[in-house]
């Protein structure tokens, strides 16, 4: 039974000398992984900027069809869940297992809120036919390349949503870990790593949000 498991202190893996070496290795590994993620999103954004440069009209027109208020709500959700993830790490360091879990649940809740808003945004686009490429059926656009904006919109936000889902998966994993492993000042690695990953999702959104919803 889950209740009977008493969280144990973490043991250093056999190939590391001490906690410090293990923790710093994990942090560096995570940063390198994030670096590759940033290159991936970054290259996509380079593509987006070049498209915007080539089709400014299409981008201005497409942007006017996105609802900045929904984008604002989602920005709030992401910022708050990032804050609660950091709080989870802080409580982990203080050894407060239940506060860690509470903050992980809160982060999950705000992340889910983000997805709900996204769902409404996407369904509105399906309704209006503002879809990528040859599926673009919306009337009333004057720029012949308006479909390019929505193509980029769906690819960029789609990839971002995929990362939100992975990030939520990591939070759920942390919840499982919190039953088995006792977090201490010396060991919060799962929460710390998930927090780093979640912060990346914030970072990407800081660029996507103004690029798609605001500038122009």
């Amino acid at each position: 039974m889950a209740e009977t498991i008493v969280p144990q202190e973490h043991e250093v893996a056999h190939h590391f000398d001490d906690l410090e070496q293990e923790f710093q290795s994990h942090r560096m590994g995570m940063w390198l992984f994030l670096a590759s993620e940033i290159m991936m999103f970054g290259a996509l954004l380079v593509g987006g900027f070049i498209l915007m440069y080539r089709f400014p009209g299409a981008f201005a027109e497409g942007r006017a069809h996105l609802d900045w208020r929904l984008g604002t709500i989602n920005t709030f959700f992401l910022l708050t869940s990032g804050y609660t993830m950091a709080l989870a790490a802080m409580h982990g360091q203080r050894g407060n297992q239940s506060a860690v879990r509470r903050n992980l649940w809160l982060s999950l809740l705000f992340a889910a809120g983000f997805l709900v808003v996204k769902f409404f945004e996407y369904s509105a686009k399906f309704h209006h036919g503002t879809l990528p490429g040859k599926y673009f059926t919306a009337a009333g656009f004057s720029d012949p390349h308006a479909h390019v904006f929505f193509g980029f919109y769906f690819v960029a936000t789609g990839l971002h949503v995929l990362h939100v889902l992975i990030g939520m998966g990591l939070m759920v994993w942390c919840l499982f870990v919190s039953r088995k492993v006792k977090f201490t000042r010396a060991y919060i690695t799962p929460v710390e790593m998930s927090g780093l990953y979640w912060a990346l999702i914030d970072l990407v959104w800081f660029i996507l949000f103004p690029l798609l919803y605001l500038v122009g």
Partner: protein
Amino acid sequence: MSAHQENINYLKARKGFLNWIVTVDHKRIGLMYLASIIFFFIAGGTYAFLFRMELWSPLQGFMTSDTYNHLFTMHGVIMVFLVVVPGIPGALGNFLLPIQLGAKDLAFPKLNITSLYLYWGGATLALFSLTQGRADSGWTFYAPYSLSQNPAVLWMLTAAFILGFSSILTGLNFIVTIHKMRAPGMTWFRLPLFVWALYATGIMQVFATPVLAITLVLLLVENFLHIGIFDPALGGDPIMMQHFFWFYSHPAVYIIVVPAFGVVSELIATFSRKTIFGYKFIAFSSVAITIIGFLVWGHHMFVAGQSDVAVTIFSFLTFFTAVPSAIKVFNWTTTLYQGSIKLTTPMLYALQFLFNFTIGGLTGIILGILSVDIHLHDTYFVVSHFHYVAMGSTMIAFIGGIYYWWPKMTGKMFNETWGRIGAVLVFIGFNVTFFVQLIMGSQGSPRRYYHYLDQFQIYHQISTVGVVILALGLFTALFNLLISLRTGATAPQNPWGARTLEWTHAATPPVLYNFTETPIVTEGPYDYPVEKV
């Protein structure tokens, strides 16, 4: 685990097929990479062998033109994504990196086996694509041809995407290991040059491969959703696709060749019994190549319709790549000078590398010249240049490295005579195959053509004969190794008298956690005793 088990060699520590598949031991993972890569090298080589036979005559031989397109695509995809890119890091790097650092394992053993699974997954998808039609886009997947919704191409794109992640995770693991897992006393300038090379490779794997990943994703999305980023019919820009592709694939050329630099540095130092000349220059030139490698991707697009401004910048920057490469070649040559050179099998491969890489590098500079490239672009000259680097340099160094570390990996000595015969055959075969292609290309013979002009027939025939010799040499080399597993003499701990940790401190074959106690490093990797003249 008992102390007794920790002290027996890794091949015997845990028995059973399943224990190999789920192992997190970097040495076993390295061996599994090695076996997989040899398998795909034979597969990719078979494709090349078949279409080389077809090219014996300028008209249709025994296959249709569609089959021909399919075969050279498969050859390219398999050789690039399944053989040369994962090759040296996956097989030799995995096996040796922790031992050369004096560590028990890589920083992330589970991630390491994950990259092998991803490799196998990608390989399976690549093979699966064979059942879905004929991939015929070439390994470069250029738009708009790759947007024709050929299911085999789509599966191939997915396979390459997965293989990319395998490569990223390997690079990440290596970088962290080199930073965090060095034994006491193993300072940065006591690292073997193979480790420096893997470090530079890791940087490129982590920073360039994600761009390939997003390119392939965009190609898939473009195929299904038609978003209009690459497809000219929708307002997209096919040259953008080439920018994306080559932003990865030029660094990929260095992902391919830089590990070979590392292997060759080890071989030359060991078999000259001399401190390597210009250690720091070789080490830093690997890192310099990494940086410069990110600045020159546009030289693949000189005649694609790129702007004249970009073309000029890229041509100018391309010349800089020659500097670090030349530094290395000069340093290796100087190391040979007055060394007590032993012409063992691995050394024969190292010397071949020097010869082939010089040709491969210099032809690259020729191709970087704008006006000359307009003539040579998409000719056999390019094919030959690329093969001098990828096959003549990387694979040759790889085979040399396998021979060099074979005793350490398996505990068996190979037959030196047959090893040398194989090496000589490979050298002759390779150069016969590809040197004529330089001549043929400079006369304007285009690559990837199924029907070619009669005047090029003699070159094609010489090249085909060369391939037969090459295949003979490669199989000699392979069988020599395999036979040694049964009949080879037991290898001593340090048969070559080398100075790096895997020879001086680790048993042959190494124990489960590499060392019975963590080595303390007190000298550099090439501190050979100075002999009195």
